[in-house]
């Protein structure tokens, strides 16, 4: 007969063992209250004991999630935070520049706008023109802000009002290469575009967006997770893509293209072939964070988070990827509730400062504001890997306080959903 192992003997002796509980035993019963824990042995519940409070935190978590969801629904179905009026399009004409100091439009004498650029300006949809007419009116009232808009559409070369030198800081008012002799535009072509006066006014006024710091447009987004505000266009739709006209909401694209001979700018070659649509991909983040737990379950977290914003700039002829990369410094405060084994549920809120590392469209580099700031809240799951390391997956909602110059999912919708995966070290 095989002799029993000593550990088996130990198990037999200790598994069903009993030890007398504390001498105080059970205190006098409390009134029958289903949710109040009794006082055992004369002791009050110790700090950090997770008895009924744990159940309450579950309800808090559910209520928080419901509140966040309701906020998202309200924001997406109303125009509470709509920064711009409906019906605005961003159509940009090359070779326009604004003199920052005077606010006057300078149109090169050698400006020559070839036919394809004329097509840029052609707007066939009357509904859209309605929206642009409003903009023209507004522009004429503040000519410097819409510095491209002449008072008299018939004489576009008339200087603008220099009295209002307000120029948005982020507009590129340095002389773009477009104004250089290498540009083959000529004044004659400029005049040729003036034949359709309303078109010209629409064209020029739309180019005010070069000076406009907030060229927002509701891009057509296929990203299922990119929720937020959609500006209802004058045509009633949620997209500002208009047949027959290109939609460049990205001033920097135009500036870049204007540095190249028009005929060789690939995007411009595509102009006549259709419209541009920005399809924003979901925003993903990866990060390394350090968490401090000064009080049990209360977490302060910071670290480095790398975020990529990518969008497909689609035309009938080509698709290019716009990619912007940020390195963010988040500062979040949160609560860890509901623990089950190695998993725990956390909720946190805070702010993030992001530094733009790179911005590109296809193979071309682009400029973007160096810093972006946002506030947000997130709720997620943390898996304890051991040795104070944990892996956290936290979907969250963010509100971006600063706008990107380039068109991104954040440009179109200041509210955004993000997916964040971080390796967390708890001190």
């Amino acid at each position, binding site marked *: 007969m095989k*002799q029993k192992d000593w550990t088996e003997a130990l198990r037999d002796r*200790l598994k069903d*063992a009993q*030890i007398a509980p504390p001498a105080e035993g059970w205190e006098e019963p*409390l009134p*029958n209250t*289903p949710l109040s824990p009794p006082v055992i042995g004369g002791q009050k519940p*110790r700090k950090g004991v997770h008895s009924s409070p744990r159940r309450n935190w579950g309800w808090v978590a559910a209520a928080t999630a419901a509140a966040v969801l309701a906020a998202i629904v309200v924001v997406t179905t109303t125009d509470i935070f709509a920064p711009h009026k409906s019906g605005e399009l961003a159509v940009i004409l090359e070779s326009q520049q604004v003199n920052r100091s005077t606010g006057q439009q300078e149109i090169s004498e050698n400006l020559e706008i070839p036919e394809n650029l004329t097509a840029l300006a052609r707007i066939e949809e009357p509904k859209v023109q309605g929206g642009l007419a409003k903009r023209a009116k507004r522009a004429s009232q503040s000519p410097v802000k819409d510095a491209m808009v002449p008072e008299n559409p018939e004489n576009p070369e008339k200087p603008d009002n220099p009295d209002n030198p307000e120029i948005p800081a982020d507009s590129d008012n340095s002389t773009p290469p477009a104004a250089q002799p290498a540009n083959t535009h000529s004044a004659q072509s400029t005049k040729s575009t003036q034949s359709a006066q309303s078109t010209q006014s629409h064209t020029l006024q739309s180019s005010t967006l070069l000076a406009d710091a907030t060229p927002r447009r509701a891009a057509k987004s296929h990203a299922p997770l990119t929720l937020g505000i959609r500006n209802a266009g004058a045509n009633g739709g949620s997209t500002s893509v208009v047949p027959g006209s290109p939609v460049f909401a990205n001033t920097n694209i135009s500036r870049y293209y204007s540095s190249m001979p028009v005929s060789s700018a690939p995007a411009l070659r595509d102009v006549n072939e259709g419209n541009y649509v920005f399809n924003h991909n979901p925003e993903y983040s990866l990060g390394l964070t350090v968490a401090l737990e000064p009080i049990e379950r209360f977490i302060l977290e910071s670290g480095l988070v790398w975020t990529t914003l990518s969008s497909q700039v689609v035309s009938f002829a080509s698709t290019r990827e716009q990619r912007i990369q940020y390195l963010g410094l988040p500062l979040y405060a949160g609560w860890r509730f509901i623990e089950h*084994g190695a998993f725990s549920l956390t909720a946190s809120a805070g702010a993030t400062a992001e530094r733009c590392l790179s911005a590109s469209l296809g193979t071309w580099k682009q400029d973007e504001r160096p810093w972006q700031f946002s506030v947000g809240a997130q709720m997620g799951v943390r898996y304890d890997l051991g040795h104070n390391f944990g892996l956290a997956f936290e979907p969250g909602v963010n509100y971006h306080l600063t706008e990107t110059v380039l068109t991104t999912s954040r440009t179109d919708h200041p509210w955004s959903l993000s997916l964040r995966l971080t390796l967390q070290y708890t001190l």
Partner: protein
Amino acid sequence: MSETYLVEQCKKGDNAARAELYKTYSPRLMAVCRRYASGREQAEDWLHDAFLRIFGQINRFRWQGEGSLKVWMEQVTRSVAIDDLRHHNALTVLPLDQSAEEPMDEPEPTADDIYRIDEADLFRLIGELPAGYRAVFNLYCIDGFSHREIARMLGIKEKTSASQLTRAKAQLAKRIREELSKLKIED
């Protein structure tokens, strides 16, 4: 009172039922706490916390047959102990004298040796183990969990669990030998 009746009454907040539950199961749960604790004082704290958690979570319990209540309460008690050890990082801290490799050639005691030692002394000897070794030893040898389950519960790797068990058994074997030597001398 039957288990089902006891549970139903506890769910309603009946303090008499709670008192009966405490009276019936506290000795057993106290033993569970004592196995995982370094001393009686810590075990009493854990027992107190365990019952608070049991009463707080009793609504989640679904009776599944005779003995299911006892099993569930032991699980809750074990969770209280392990959570507290994890929270205080006791599971990852090795005593300074443990930094070197443990001698693994300690002769193991026999089953008869185990029966010669008092139950209270066995609890004491187990309590003298480092917290991490103690937890792994209890989970594997007494409660019957696998290394994979232990790794998940303690937030460590399976290999770590296995090596800690080896070291725990070596240390405990040595302490049992020493205890038996004392008993022989006293005899």
